[in-house]
């Protein structure tokens, strides 16, 4: 299963949207326009976009505390996302979620969980619901390498495989749970091998290669939709920024500057894919147009977000209940 020409350009567009969104949001963060934590998805764009593009619009998804990329990858509008980061009423979650909880249900996201591993059972339940209701929706579940050591991962994969649920478990393995490496925390650092314990296939792919991620996910989606059950995909990727903005503890390096620089130079998923597209005959002009369009799009999103009002203080209790007593 390969991307067609339109999908290829869309892959480039969405990866670039994530990158430019994060860069602009970090600028707004440093200008104190964005409160709270800030977990950047920069470096992980291909793992997100390749997987999302393999889904149908009506497929469901869950994400993680590093949540900015997921809705953008699934095609969400940027203005309500930027407004959410700023805690505005025009935010996708009306200013009640923020950086770690960027769930846009209009594109099929049922939650982004700030609790590591917390969304894995929810994604499994979403796939369970599709199975019980007899619809052919699949659910894509993003989580990081750290979440693999949570009980929710094991309990969920067991149930999904037991009942052949239409779930795709996609591990964005960026090598570090905050500052603790996979080698320091996983008795079996080859995460895909864990799938065997639940009787499901596990594959490892290059998470910096959007084509590889798309193709692996598209196969998994076809399999899941056909009722053949879940799969674990481990996309090896790299976080270019710190766990969250400003977290770096001086004098306590957990990864070398050389390692970071090498990834930024040789393993940038956007630069890698730009080269692929040019080699495949896409014109420089076409790529430039996409880049300009993304820049404009981000500018509009920031304008919308800055102009969106803060929530009125008396609305603090809104959205608690569907059925207030």
């Amino acid at each position: 299963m390969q991307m067609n020409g339109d999908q290829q350009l869309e892959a480039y567009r969405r990866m670039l949207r994530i990158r430019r969104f994060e860069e602009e949001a970090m600028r707004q963060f440093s200008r104190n326009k964005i409160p709270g934590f800030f977990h950047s998805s920069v470096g992980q764009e291909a793992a997100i976009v390749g997987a999302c593009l393999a889904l149908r619009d009506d497929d469901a998804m869950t994400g993680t505390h590093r949540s900015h990329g997921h809705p953008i990858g699934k095609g969400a509008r940027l203005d309500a996302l930027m407004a959410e980061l700023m805690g505005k009423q025009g935010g996708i979650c009306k200013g009640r979620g923020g950086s770690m909880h960027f769930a846009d249900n209009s594109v099929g996201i049922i939650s982004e969980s700030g609790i590591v591993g917390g969304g894995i059972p929810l994604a499994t339940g979403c796939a369970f619901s599709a199975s019980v209701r007899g619809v052919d929706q699949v659910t894509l579940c993003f989580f990081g390498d750290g979440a693999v050591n949570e009980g929710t991962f094991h309990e969920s994969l067991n149930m999904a495989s037991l009942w052949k649920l239409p779930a795709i478990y996609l591990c964005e393995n960026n090598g570090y749970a905050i500052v603790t490496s996979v080698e320091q925390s996983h008795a079996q650092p080859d995460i895909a091998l864990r799938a065997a314990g639940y009787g499901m296939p596990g594959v490892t792919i290059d998470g910096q290669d959007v084509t590889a991620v798309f193709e692996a996910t598209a196969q998994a989606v076809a399999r899941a939709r056909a009722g053949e059950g879940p799969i674990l995909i481990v996309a090896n990727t790299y976080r270019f920024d710190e766990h969250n903005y400003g977290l770096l503890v001086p004098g306590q390096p957990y990864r070398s500057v050389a390692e970071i620089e090498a990834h930024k130079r040789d393993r940038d998923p956007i630069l890698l894919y730009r080269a692929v597209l040019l080699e495949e005959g896409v014109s420089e002009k076409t790529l430039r147009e996409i880049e300009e369009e993304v820049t404009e799009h981000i500018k509009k999103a920031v304008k919308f977000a800055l102009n969106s009002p803060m929530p009125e203080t008396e609305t603090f209790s809104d959205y608690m209940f569907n059925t207030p007593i």
Partner: protein
Amino acid sequence: MHTDAQKHAAPHGTDIQMTYVEAIVQAQIEEMDRDERVILMGEDVSIYGRGKLFERFGKRRVWNMPISEGGFTGLAIGAAISGLRPIVDLSTASFVYLASDQIINQASKLRFMTGGQIDIPIVFRCFMYSAGSMAAQHADRPYPLFMNVPGLKIISPTSAADIKGLMKSAIRDGDPVLVFEDARLWSLEGDVPTDPDRVIPIGKADVKREGRDVTLVAIAGAIRPTIEAVDALTEEGVSVEVIDPRTLKPLDHEAVKMSVAKTGRLVIVENGHRVCNVGSEIAAVMAEEAFDLLRRPILRLSAPDIHVPFSPALEKGFFPTKDDIAAAVRRLL
């Protein structure tokens, strides 16, 4: 006793005798008949006690779960967000701790945190063994912990009719509802309406006995020794009003205030541990909002701040007894 056939065949608008636990099953049967999105999941649910539900609805509606309380609770929450209305049977209340991360961090928060983009219509059932030598890891009554969590509704009815009507409301509700059943009440028989549309609203207390001298608020299984004490006190000429909140969150403080306005005296009885329990909350609200109505200090009877002991010799006086309750009422006269 009536046979199952008689129970199902009874005309609408009449009452029928059944036990508390039969009323729970009947509520689930009616709601699963009414709405195909309602499903039941939990450990061993197809076999123990609810075999009737499995026979009627089959394996697409009644799901046996592996022993993965956190996992299947989260699975149910994901299913609730995505078009189903699960009833999650968590069995013994002590096991709810295993599911509590998902109940608190996901179920109670996600509607709010998504700005109302999603709904989570889900029911979590569990039962509390407050006597019977279960020892401390099977004898918890953890409802006060969950009362401290915004976004959860909590019911703990004490009669067969109330559990049926409130369970049905819980299943029809659009938000997470926790049901704390007291295993002491399962065998209680009572008249239960057969009308499948008779529901009891969440958040409304019920006056179980009317009286003039003292208000007794009894929570969950504490209703049994409370009623025994009230019978004894009545013979002594003491008139006690008994209020069962039925819903623990939100509490019906107005019902308590109305009673205290009449009696001026308040005793709260429960089997939860003493620190920060339902009695604490009712007493605090009465002190803030109804201080002028009180003629005597509020008394609270509860389990001590000690774990439930295994030995019958130690467990015997652990929870408030009929005599403790009667003595507390007499102290206020």
